[in-house]
């Protein structure tokens, strides 16, 4: 039997072209789909082939939400275990839940906020436990106080844009700050743009 995978990483890609996966997770209502759309739009404008897999309906409404952004020489929207180069999250429990999608040494960027599930009597691990769990299983963790930053600027809903600013700074995506800001402009209602730009800047400065 011929073995195609001799190195450590299962998903070392045999093709010649790039094939990347980014995961965005959070709680339904935090603007995860908007964030994914902004990134997806910028990638398309960059000339890349893109797949952004969303979940709608029952899966929203304060439930756990995960979206996959795949770009490069990609066709299928749904990745699998250990494939993502980065996990971006708007909430720490939802961040931890999807760690298994990261490849070894993958980057984690998360809002440092814990929002316990709305279940009477639920027990939730402490922030220290969660951070330890993430650090044990990944290369790098960037905790961003996105809710605090958002609260200081206006509506908490812009925490997603704060995180987007941090993502821009860390250079995880093949996109410049300007390209992401251009996409933000195209995908956010005009009247909310000003506060979103500030959120982006604060997120950019936060890492």
């Amino acid at each position, binding site marked *: *039997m*011929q*073995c*195609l*995978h001799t190195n450590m990483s*299962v*998903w070392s*890609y*045999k*093709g010649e072209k790039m*094939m990347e996966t980014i995961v965005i997770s959070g*709680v*339904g209502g935090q603007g995860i789909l908007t964030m*994914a*759309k902004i990134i997806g*739009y910028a990638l*398309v404008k960059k000339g890349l*082939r*893109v*797949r*952004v*897999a*969303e*979940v*709608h*309906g*029952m*899966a929203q*409404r*304060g*439930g*756990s939400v995960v979206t996959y952004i795949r770009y490069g020489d990609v*066709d*299928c*929207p*749904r990745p*699998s*275990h*250990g*494939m993502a180069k980065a996990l971006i999250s708007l909430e720490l*429990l939802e961040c*931890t*839940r999807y*760690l*298994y*999608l990261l490849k*070894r040494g993958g980057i984690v960027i998360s809002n440092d906020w814990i929002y*316990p*599930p*709305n*279940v*009477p009597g639920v*027990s*939730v*691990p402490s922030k220290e436990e969660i951070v330890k*769990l993430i650090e044990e*299983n990944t290369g790098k963790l960037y905790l961003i106080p996105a809710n605090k930053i958002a*609260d200081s600027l206006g*509506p*908490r809903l812009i925490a997603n844009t704060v995180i987007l600013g941090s993502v821009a700074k860390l250079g995880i995506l093949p996109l410049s700050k300007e390209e992401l800001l251009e996409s933000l402009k195209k995908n956010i209602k005009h009247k909310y743009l000003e506060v979103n730009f500030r959120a982006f800047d604060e997120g950019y400065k936060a890492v």
Partner: protein
Amino acid sequence: MILGSPGERALLLGNEAIARGAIEAGVHVAAGYPGTPSTEIIDTLAKVADRIGMIVDWCVNEKVALETAYAASMCGLRALATMKHVGLNVAADVFMSIGYSGVRGGLVVVSADDPGCHSSQNEQDNRYYSLMSYIPCFEPYCPQEAKDLLTTAYDFSEKYETAVLFRATTRICHTRGDVVLGEIRRIERKAEFTYNPSRWVLLPVNSRKLRVKMLERITKLEDVLSSFEFNRLEGEGKVGIIASGIGYAYTRDALKALGLWGKVRVLKLASSNPLPAKLFRKFIESVEKILVVEEGDPFVLRRVKEKLFDLGVQIPVHGKGDYLPVAGELDLFSVMRAVARLVGVEVKEPSESISLEEKLSGKIPTRPPTMCPGCPHRATFYAIKQAMKELGERIPCTGDIGCYTLGFNPPFQLQDTSTCMGASIGEGAAIARFTGKPVVATIGDSTFYHAGVPGLINAVYIQAPLVAVVMDNGVTAMTGHQPHPGTGMTATGKRSKVIKIEDISRACGVEFVRVVDPYNLKETIQVIKDALEYAKRERKPAVVVARRLCALVAARKGLRGKPPVVEDCRGCMVCVNTFACPALIVEDGKVKIDEGLCFGCNVCTQICPFGAIRVRK
């Protein structure tokens, strides 16, 4: 964006791509009933309907939506009907007949299947409807092909006078992808009904003849589809993969990742029924074993086995059921593993990641979806539960399909059944009749119009002691606030007559009909108790309409109230444990209001046994 110029490269949701495909095909009429994952097709078209002169309707249910589209086709117009997979069950009666009659104007029925049950009660594979109805089934593999295939489906439909079942799945409908826009065709046609009884009147005398025609048509299409531009052969080798619909996307990525692209013979299928006969024969010429990659049931797999048997060819065929799991969605790893197994190469299992997933699921609590802060359904469920408590009886509570299905979760646990649209009333009345004891049926407004009304008539007819609580929040909320016959607005935002649930109930023969505001707990609890006592005493059904606008819609309209204040909380947790609003948060054993989340409904102020949560002055 949806009306962008030809050649433009846009990021479109699969459903937007389907909508754009309909626009490019010059579709005249589009009708549907909201249902995840199909909803955004009509949502998208409704926004531009007036600008492009398309008739776009949200109908009362999928059956009426398909009848609308079919009627458009009878009148020579191009028509689109959209629904989720289980919606086609509702529309199946019309659908089967369309197989017989065929079409005049192009007719495409989009079925959005939901493997993985992201937002549905089952994983049914609607390609079987294609087999049953002799209506061909097309399946796209990506948003770009969804648009192109849909546009082509109209020419195909008119050329061969057949409807087309366009089967998409969640990962097509709700995946955004780069799509190059095409030319928008304007097809000027006037709606004209042509008298053609031998075709439109399905009496036995006509149906017998039409059935023969239908069988001839589907056989002919086997050949036609062999040269269909969306079906093709790729790569060379003794190993073959048949990749149907989105299965092709997984196959492509799996082959690329394994370094096998071009080294395996692939039959890419966009028509899963009928199988393109000539193309299939060409495909099997050189292959020694076959893997079928498809989303849903082993549908193509079974057809392939049947075809091979007919041809007298013995080739092992794998796919769903052995190399791939039948339950749930495809994922890239499963397909890679199946391909590697077929080719005879090794693929390293991501065992570390798999054990990490298991470890995490033990440590991180699940997060079920929940009713929103201010959701009137939460108050209604609280009132039903309280009424039962006060009557000292746990009464069976039949459930239905909508946001209120979340009443299944703690602390309410008041969805004792949930089957399909409208079943709360049909089942509830029957259970009440068989057991001789009252039953509460909980059903939403849109669901009531959709399939609740016949059940209610029947409840009156069989004299069942049923209390139907209709939770009327003014819109079809779960799918994104689409209007319905009670909203007073059409899909395209025009005013329409408000058809009231209480009027319908009375017209159905219900004598006890009350309308309450669920934000007023005391009144709501009392009315539900009265209704239960009435049903028990009179052996007749009662209807309680719990009416309050969906909190998300209300918030958008600026109708948010002020968050209440909490003073001297004793930490008894009654509010948290019995009402469980996400805006009630606990810090150091005391309840606080998260003012960012709070909608200001003030229902919790009516629940605190110590009056510690007070309306803000």
